[in-house]
């Protein structure tokens, strides 16, 4: 199972992680190894099998849509690398 360097670059872009050229080649190789490892799964017959994403069987666990004021806002914002007036500060988007 081969992955092109171009595809690896594309995945890196989607993952929002910067790689050096040398790293890209290393990760391309790792990805190929992992995909080779899991390749056998493709041949398992799964016609009419429902995909499983939760094991508890719980469905739609609701709570009342009550609001209350938060006591953790300040502590959460304290972990921001850059804040302004209680907002996360980011680089220009537009």
């Amino acid at each position: 199972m081969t992955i092109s360097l171009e595809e690896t670059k594309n995945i890196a872009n989607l993952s929002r992680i910067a790689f050096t050229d040398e790293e890209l080649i290393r990760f391309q190789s790792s990805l190929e190894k992992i995909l080779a490892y899991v390749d056998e799964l493709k041949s398992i017959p799964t016609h009419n099998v429902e995909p499983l994403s939760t094991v508890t069987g719980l469905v739609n666990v609701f709570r009342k849509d009550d609001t209350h004021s938060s006591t953790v806002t300040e502590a959460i914002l304290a972990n921001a690398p850059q804040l302004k007036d209680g907002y996360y500060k980011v680089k220009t988007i537009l």
Partner: protein
Amino acid sequence: MNLAYKEISELRELLDTKHLSSLELTQYFFKRIKELNPLLNAYLTLSEEHAYYLAKRADDFINSPGNNPWLCGIPYAAKDLFLTKGIRTTAASKILDKYIAPYNATVINKLESQYAVLLGKTNLDEFAHGSSTETSAYGASKNPWNLSRIPGGSSGGSSSAVAGGLAPFALATETGGSIRQPASLTGTCGWKPTYGRVSRYGVIAMASSLDCPGTIALSVKDLVYTANAISGQDAKDSTTGNHNVHYTPEIPKSLAGLRVGVPREYFPEGMESGVKTRIYEAINILEKLGASITEVSLPLTKYGSLVYAIVCPSEVSSNLMRYDGIRYTHQSNKATDLYDIYCQSRAEGFGDEAKRRIMTGTYVLSAGYFDAYYKQAQKVRRLILNEFMEVFKKVDVLACASSPNVAVPIGGAKDNPLFGYIADQLNIPSSLAGLPGLSIPCGLATSTTGDSVSLPVGFQLIGPQWQEQILFNIGLIFQAETDFHKSIPQPLTI
């Protein structure tokens, strides 16, 4: 008084009869930790001031009239995935090196309401990605039985702490082997709950459909006390089961009537022969205690790790997207635009294994590959679950090894993207099915990797969904009949 390696019931007695205060007990452990942690690298952060506050609070409670909860005044360590308010929480990653948790995980709050005393945060593989702690940004933890060997992972700091006598018990998490395997490798007792038994609120997420907070301790009896303290439905985690939970530490009289299944696929080629021997001996003990033993077959076992190698990174890639260089402390100062902030901060903050899992997950979830990989993996996952449900119509519990080998030397995992998937092959299938598991010591075996040293072997029990009491019962009577769990490593010296 030597207080290391005393079980919770012994400490409870000393505290309740006022032979010892929680403050003295806490001070004892900090002294020991400061002496030995440089050798073990089990702890990343110590929270002394907070611990002394909690210990004094526990002593006040003990000195007031009335009974004391089992964990009142008992010190413990928490894997550094559990948010602990006001205390540094890193997930063993550079990207969270300076992160201060804004609130407590539910499990931390539950332990605090029992007056247990948090000593500090233990090392792990970065974001729990691994089976040895070698992917930690802060270096690997060491196995107290042999400092050149891994303590297992990802909860390796927790297992090292308990096995090293640096905490009576420790919080840990398991997604695919991360409690059972390290417990096995360090001769400690590990409980991986049924998925949904324990709240994940405030636990840094790895794979949300698999993560299970649990505990590592010195005996099954101690695991029962911790299970009672941390289990239960939580309004803040809608994946928790709504059962009323109370486990008993009462030792059953015998195992008569218990049907034990031994799955033939859990003795793979490459399993160390010494491990195999110890497991068969442990199974014979169950038979001696009255259980009936049957060989069973779980043919889909070999696909477990393959399914996990797709499902886990997929969920990881989603969960780790939040580390954007904007909200969680680390931001690259090389960034010139927003795109850079994401890409450079994440490149700087994440280790190789985290990047590998994010990349793998992103690939298999991307358009054109989703059906072939992720959806197919989820279908095989259902087949694996169905296979377990079928086998539990014939037997009540499965018995096997927790790990195919004893602890390997540190350095074995390096740059091997498949290391964890192979190390955890005996744990992953039951994790995928959300089943409860227990690992308890059953003696030593000779390593076939590196020096021929004798290292602990873990006996694994896997139960049907929500049936932890069956596992606890077997463990309790096993530990009444044997004393493998009382073996501790040689004292460490600087």
